[in-house]
């Protein structure tokens, strides 16, 4: 039996728990089977590094779990649906219990979906749970990836995990698109028609891809069965594989954590897997499952019986894809048409369709995938990072993230431009024009505003460090001058506010900067310009000298040193993780 890689030596604060002789029923019952398994699998050795692994606690660390648990719900509910769904486009006459479609010709796929909704008990519940879980799966992945981005958790050694995540996001979006197209209803069928037209319009290879995907002309009779195998077999298998790798890496690298007292780059502080984390995470699984079930019970989603079976000559106003395809839908709506299709000789180059189809998705996924490497190239930082950044401490990264979100949001809004027009009583054409401009202008504006906000927040942190927290108590000194009393912050908070790693803007490379050949030199100059773009405005932590000087300045020469248990002795009751270390007398300002 090969030795498992040991990633954690004997943890200094964790002692192996040997079950006592007078253990309760759990141990008595479990001992036999566990020993049986161990004699065949070496369970104890396998499990040892992970059994008491420590996981830090923060609500934003649970976003990825929402995605994971939604995926499990999708698997379970999907199995149920598979038992009754018929992935066939053969035409049948509806004989089920929904009277408003009685006798109409429709595909078997649609008819079996109606059967699930009306004739199989619990079928509608499972259908709705499945669809809500899909929405939440992608939403949680997006929220989770935003958390990772803004806290810099994609930095070394976690770049591969980030790439796995981008892959999962892309797979999830397509999985959902294929999934809701399976019932072959009017709404999703219209989406399939869009897909067909968009694929067909691809320059050079369009008709070939279209004919290969649809086995001929649209709609044909093979697209639903093909989407079916993609949806229940191929893509879930890929997702499972990526999720397994993703989780394995989280275990191997250990989870990141926010800065705070007692936390360093070398340690991870939190609760052990058994029992606390298992109870919280396991409990959260049931909570997610329960919330999804309640949503399936109380909130109607995708009522295919109202929309009707797919008919290429029918359409509904307000036809949109599910929310996660909204940004692609928006791109294709706000793209102008006339003039953006080239007719060269007997060929047609449909840039008006190809650009909005290919560009936003490519930009999003490739941009996301490359970002960690771009940032690493810019900063030249090759050290490992396990402490999370507060978004304000990297204003340019945060600004870029918000700019990307704004760009995404403008496209997303574009996907619903007709609903914006009706709900807010404005002209559809005006909305489209505004969005056409906003998609370029709004991200830039968002970047500038966000960056300034971050720098402002950094400044307020700086103030807290040097001058203490504002108490809101105004004093007037004998000379008539007003000032606000400040109270020094706890050491724990000081420590937390000064833990981030910092980057610096660099001057252009000069003669004394080492040997660079021509192309290397240009690259290096570009990199240095990028560091200036990133970091020239960023505030930097005060040095120890500055902190001490400020403290001295405050205490009118009382001579207290930073770090020597600097508290104000009044029980500042922060409730934060930094408990004040009492015991130091301070000649502080009276309350």
């Amino acid at each position: 039996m090969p030795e498992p890689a040991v990633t954690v030596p004997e943890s200094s604060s964790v002692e192996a728990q040997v079950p006592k002789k007078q253990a309760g029923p759990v141990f008595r019952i479990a001992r036999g089977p566990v020993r049986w398994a161990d004699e065949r699998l070496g369970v104890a050795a396998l499990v040892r590094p992970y059994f008491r692994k420590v996981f830090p606690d923060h609500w934003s660390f649970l976003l990825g779990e929402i995605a994971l648990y939604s995926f499990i719900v999708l698997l379970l509910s999907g199995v149920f649906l598979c038992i009754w769904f018929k992935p066939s486009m053969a035409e049948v006459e509806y004989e089920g219990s929904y009277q408003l479609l009685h006798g109409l010709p429709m595909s078997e796929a649609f008819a079996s979906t109606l059967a699930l909704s009306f004739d199989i008990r619990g079928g509608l519940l499972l259908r709705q749970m499945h669809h809500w879980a899909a929405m939440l799966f992608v939403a949680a992945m997006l929220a989770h990836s935003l958390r990772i981005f803004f806290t810099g958790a994609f930095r070394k050694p976690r770049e591969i995990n980030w790439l796995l995540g981008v892959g999962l996001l892309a797979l999830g979006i397509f999985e959902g698109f294929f999934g809701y197209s399976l019932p072959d209803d009017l709404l999703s069928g219209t989406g399939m028609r869009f897909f067909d037209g968009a694929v067909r319009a691809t320059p050079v290879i369009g008709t070939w891809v279209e004919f290969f995907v649809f086995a001929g002309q649209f709609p044909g009779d093979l697209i639903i069965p093909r989407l079916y195998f993609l949806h229940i077999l191929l893509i879930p298998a890929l997702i499972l594989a990526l999720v397994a790798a993703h989780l394995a890496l989280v275990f191997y690298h250990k989870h990141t954590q926010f800065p705070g007292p007692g936390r360093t780059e070398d340690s991870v502080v939190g609760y052990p897997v058994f029992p606390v984390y298992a109870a919280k995470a396991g409990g959260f699984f049931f909570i997610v499952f329960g919330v999804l079930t309640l949503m399936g019970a109380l909130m109607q989603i995708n009522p295919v019986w109202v929309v009707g079976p797919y008919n290429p000559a029918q359409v509904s106003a307000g036809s949109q894809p599910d929310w996660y395809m909204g940004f692609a839908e928006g791109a294709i709506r706000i793209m102008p048409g006339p003039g953006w299709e080239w007719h060269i000789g007997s060929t047609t180059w449909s840039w008006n369709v190809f650009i909005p189809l290919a560009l936003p998705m490519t930009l999003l996924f490739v941009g996301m995938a490359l970002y960690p490497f771009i940032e690493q190239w810019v900063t030249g930082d090759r050290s490992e990072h396990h402490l999370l950044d507060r978004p304000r401490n990297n204003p340019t990264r945060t600004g870029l993230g918000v700019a990307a979100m704004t760009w995404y949001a403008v496209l997303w809004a574009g996907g619903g431009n007709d609903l914006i027009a009706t709900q807010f009583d404005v002209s559809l054409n005006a909305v489209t024009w505004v969005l056409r401009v906003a998609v370029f202008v709004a991200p830039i504006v968002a970047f500038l505003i966000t960056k300034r906000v971050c720098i402002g927040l950094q400044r307020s942190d700086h103030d807290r460090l040097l001058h203490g927290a504002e108490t809101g108590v105004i004093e007037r000194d004998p000379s008539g001058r007003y000032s606000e009393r400040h109270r020094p912050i706890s050491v724990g908070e000081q420590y937390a506010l000064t833990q981030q790693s910092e980057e610096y803007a660099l001057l252009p490379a000069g003669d004394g900067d080492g040997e660079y050949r021509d192309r290397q030199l240009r690259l290096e100059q570009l990199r240095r310009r990028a560091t200036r773009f990133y970091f020239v405005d960023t505030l930097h932590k005060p040095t120890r000298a500055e902190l001490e000087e400020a403290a001295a300045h405050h205490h009118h020469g009382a001579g207290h040193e930073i770090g020597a248990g600097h508290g104000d002795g009044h029980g500042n009751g922060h409730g934060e993780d930094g408990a004040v270390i009492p015991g130091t007398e301070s000649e502080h300002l009276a309350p």
Partner: protein
Amino acid sequence: MRFLSSRRRHPAAKVALLLFALFVLGGLYNVVAPAERVSADNGYSQQQVDEGRKLFAVGCASCHGLNGEGQTTDTIQGPSLIGVGAAAVDFQVSTGRMPMSRPGEQAPVKPNRYSDEEIAALAAYVASLGPGPAIPTETEYNPENLSEEDLARGGELFRTNCSACHNFQGAGGALPDGRYAPSLIGLDSKRLYLAMLTGPQQMPVFSDEVLTPEDKRVIIGYLNELHERPQDGGLALGGIGPVSEGLWAWIVGMGLLVLFAVWITAKGAKAK
């Protein structure tokens, strides 16, 4: 007779003959021509037509002209009402669309200020201007006693002809330049019929010869059934499709779960 024939070369003879011929023809026409152009179904009386003319002059003529001939200026777009028929008047006035409170892209529904008698009078007057669609009888628009197949067919007709503007639920949809196709939810059968028949404002006309009265009836039956039926899956969330579903997924789904996440990881009160 000698009196007339001896004056046959009188200078006034031709004129007199002409006038006589005109009188004869005019009189003949009056005898054989139908009485006032009123709809055969409703049988408007002359009194109604007169009453309607007065109401028209007050409430409609400023845009549509004193004789319903219509006018188009920079600000006023009052199409001609000659030939729109009683049906159009009933629809437009009873839903409050007409008279429009101000010129604009859309004639929205608003509270109706005319009584049923006044509407009938206006309808009578406009119907007298030129032949047009008549107000349907109740048997034509009342969708009682329709079989399941009929209702299903109504659904197919609805999704082929109507849902492109009014959406699959009949919840309405956007048109260019700030116009919209209104919601059909809660609309009564007669008004649905009238709208299809007369093609109000930007809505196209669906004449009885192409979309027969029976076709219209099954569409109305389908809509009534659809709107009466409870929402099987739960709260309808607006009935406008994936956009509202996505919104609620984020607000309710992610919102609730994030709240739970905050609770799970909260440090909680300490004893000291």
